């Protein structure tokens, strides 16, 4: 166990604990706040894995924008303070499938990597990542920008009040 391992374990535990609250809590707004904790912990894992830029993009976009939009929507749809009774369907089917997915994926990963040790890569710089992005992945990048534009137009069309 190295210090990186301990950090990864701690952050992973925080992420999983908070994610459990996200899918189980009966307080609508608190689910969004626990999601912030999960996303922050995952960003921490990225930092340990030397993916600095991805970590901060995660904070800027996910915590700063996506979660705020979600909370905004929760409040606009009249979330009550306190527990709501009817947030969940009976959970056994979901628990079965979800647990199966987690177990299956976990078994696959453990089988693939065992307890093997890997040296941490050197901290990535924004420059290296940018070079990769704009040399090898330019086409997906452009397609993505078109998709964003389409999503923007779509969101505006959907949310316009009908006359």
């Amino acid at each position, binding site marked *: 166990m190295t210090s990186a391992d301990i950090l990864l374990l701690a952050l992973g535990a925080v992420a999983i604990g908070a994610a459990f609250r996200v899918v189980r809590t009966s307080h609508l*707004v608190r689910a969004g706040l626990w999601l912030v904790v999960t996303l922050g912990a995952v960003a921490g894992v990225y930092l340990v894995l030397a993916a600095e830029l991805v970590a901060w*993009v995660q904070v800027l976009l996910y*915590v*700063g924008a996506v979660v705020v939009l979600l*909370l*905004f929507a929760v409040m606009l749809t009249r979330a009550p303070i306190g527990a709501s009774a009817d947030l969940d369907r009976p959970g056994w089917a979901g628990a079965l499938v979800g647990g199966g997915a987690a177990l299956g994926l976990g078994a696959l990963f453990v089988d693939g990597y065992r307890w093997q040790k890997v040296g941490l890569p050197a901290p990535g*710089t*924004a420059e290296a990542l940018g070079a990769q992005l704009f040399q090898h992945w330019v086409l997906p990048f452009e397609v993505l920008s078109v998709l964003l534009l389409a999503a923007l137009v779509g969101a505006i069309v959907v949310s316009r009040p009908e006359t």
Partner: protein
Amino acid sequence: MIAVIVRVLGVVAAFLTLPLIVGQTEHKVMAHMQARLGPMYAGAFHGWAQLIADGVKFVQKEDVTPRAADRPVFRVAPLVALLPYLVALLFIPLGPRDTLVGQPLDVGLFVVLAVVGVGVVAVLMAAWSSANKYSLLGGLRAAAQLLGYELPFVLAAASVAMAAGTLSLSGIVNAWRPWWLLWQLPALVVFFVAGLAEIRRPPFDMPVADSELVFGYLTEYTGLRFAFFLLAEYVGIVVIAALTTVLFLGGWKGPFDAQLGWLWTLLKVFAVSFVIIWLRVAYPRLREDQLQRLCWLVLVPVALAQLVLTAAVRVA
């Protein structure tokens, strides 16, 4: 290791003193602009200890949590409001040497922008958990405002980063030349105005508009927790002023900057803070629709045009 601890302590000291200085300046500057004297008694000499007295008063007040409130969320919100600014201060360089920045970083600009954006979550937490419709209205206004103004804020910063060719805050100051003041002027204005809106200072204080919303998302807060929100506002002024200084006004650049760099940075930060206070006195509050229109129809297009200009100059 010791060097790191000293630097972190330095940042904490700055975190505790700079906002108080700015707050005291605001009291006195506002008073004199309105032909008043402002605080005169606390500490005997021109009321220099007024904010300390305020702090003592806040500590003594009862810490009320409304019965209908969502207790844990309500109680944590002030800390979430304060923490991002403390983290942001860590990355702002004071002088040319690496010893004068809490933590030099390759993606410093990005970190600061990301961290400042987290403040919105605190506003929404405070607004919703107060169980008060004025709070909720204020919080929704704040969320709409902060989401909107985040865009020109980041775009204007991106323009400077592109001009300097780096995301490191020290690197940007190193690349800065005096003629950038002219060339990056639109970005400077956009960044400053959007920054004002990000920290909800007048004339962008629609979320706490006291004539219609009592005090917005702060309505239910008392005592120390309210003081935390106030402190967050003043640290916000310092952070926005420092960012404007570092990105657009050349940070530590000035005569004898090898030795006096930190002094130039501080002077510029205080000058920008003074302008922020001045704007509060000079302009009335923007209406909600005017506020959104300014963002989407003026600031965003100007920021995009500046980005195109910067890209063209860089490529040419």
